[in-house]
């Protein structure tokens, strides 16, 4: 009775070990098929990120160097980290009225957690998330970005 139990234990143990070795052996012999490594810096040319990937906040400009930002500061309020600072100015309209417009849209990438709240908060779809992710720089100052292009102005019809 003791002996049969003993032999059964040994048999079961050896069998379970061999099952495990079969699995690793399968991966060893089928390495060419099963390897999942992405050789990242080498595959840069073919690497595409998902279109919703949250990499950094950007402000799209059209071909006339016009953006959609009205300077309403909704994003600045929505940001939990104080990532966005908007400096506004008063711009003279052709009809003589004064209108609020952005002077500089400062974006601190080093503070950003990519939570997407600013993009959701924006009423005029002026900012969006870009799919870039290689943000490493040698100097922290380079992470402070101005999103509106120099000389750009607000698009016609965006209120």
């Amino acid at each position, binding site marked *: 009775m003791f002996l049969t139990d003993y032999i059964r234990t*040994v048999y079961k143990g050896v069998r379970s*070990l061999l099952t*495990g*070795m079969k*699995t*690793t*052996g399968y*991966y*060893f012999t089928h*390495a060419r098929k*099963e*390897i*999942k*490594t992405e*050789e990242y810096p080498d595959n840069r040319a073919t690497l595409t990120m998902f279109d919703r990937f949250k990499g950094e906040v950007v402000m799209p400009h059209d071909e006339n160097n016009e953006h959609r930002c009205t300077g309403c500061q909704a994003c600045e309020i929505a940001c939990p980290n104080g990532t966005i600072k908007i400096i506004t100015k008063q711009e003279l309209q052709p009809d003589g009225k004064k209108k609020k417009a952005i002077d500089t849209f400062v974006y601190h990438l080093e503070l950003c957690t990519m939570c997407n709240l600013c993009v959701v908060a924006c009423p005029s779809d002026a900012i969006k998330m870009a799919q870039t992710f290689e943000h490493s720089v040698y100097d922290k100052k380079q992470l402070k970005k101005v999103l509106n292009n120099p000389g750009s102005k607000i698009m016609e019809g965006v209120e």
Partner: protein
Amino acid sequence: MNLLLTISFSSVASGIHNWLVSTIPNELLAKSVEMVIAGICLLLFLVPLCFILGYMERKVAGFMQMRYGPNRVGPYGSLQIVADTVKLVMKEGLTPTGSDKFLFNLAPVIMVVTCMLVLAPIAFAKDFQIWDINIGVLYVSAISSLAVIGILMAGWSSYNKYSLLGAMRSGAQIVSYELSVGLSLISIVILTGSLKMSDIVMSQETGWWIIRGHIPVIISFVIFVIASTAEINRAPFDLAEAEQELTAGFHTEYAGMKFAMFLLAEYINLFIVSAIAATLFLGGWMPFHIGHWQEFNHIMDFVPSSLWFLGKTFFIIFIIMQFRWTFPRLRVDQLLTLEWKYLLPISMVNTILVTVMAIMGWHF
């Protein structure tokens, strides 16, 4: 082809020996020069061997884990291990303040020296052996158990609690697994009737013991592989190291070249146990022979004997590597349970079976 076969290691070795004896009149001096040459050859063999084993281990691990393994330095990453060695040599060999400096620095040397001593009686090819001592198997099992002194020394002198725990574990482990290794070696000694390595290899001229010896020899082969994995402290028996429990066990405090020596010793040990298993159970350099089929045996002889030896050795090395990358680690009490409740009783019964088989002549 014929020319290639006739220039074997043995003729080169005996040529050098004859030339030395004839040019140097003093026999003692000639012998010592020969020894120095042998030692240098051994070192020249061991360092590339460790590079190959290190590279092989990383590639095997990589493929088993759906990775490429090293693939940046050199073709297919083959120079990665060279780069790592350069890094280790350049690093500062730190000695902790509280440690026993003499023992701390001596321990890695002992580890390397003991495992290089074991290489002496191993037959690398036909008639190519450093020292064909007549108690070869006994010598191997005696010297290989000295490695525990190096580990204990390293753990004790490091002035680190993790190191001490690792060293103490290793002491219990190696002392107990020594028994199973010895008993499984004895089963071949019983069948051969000799402790001499060359005799053991020659006795397998009509077939390797693992084939001729039926199930008992297969059992003792399996026990030998398991127990010697434990003896060289490789996973799943790497309790002295136990990264997840003791960070790095007995070599926690070692860095730079001293750490590299532990690594060197680990790989040489791996090679040695595989070489011994290959010699005793798989016929060493002896080609694959079947009984008295002269034609078949003759065809097999065309493959150089050193290739046979290295092929068998690397096969066993691969199996031990697969152990490491497949199994979880045992706990310290389960390690001893495995030895005293399973391996030792089984190998004792097995020894009796082998003895009966040898007396009755039931093997092929």
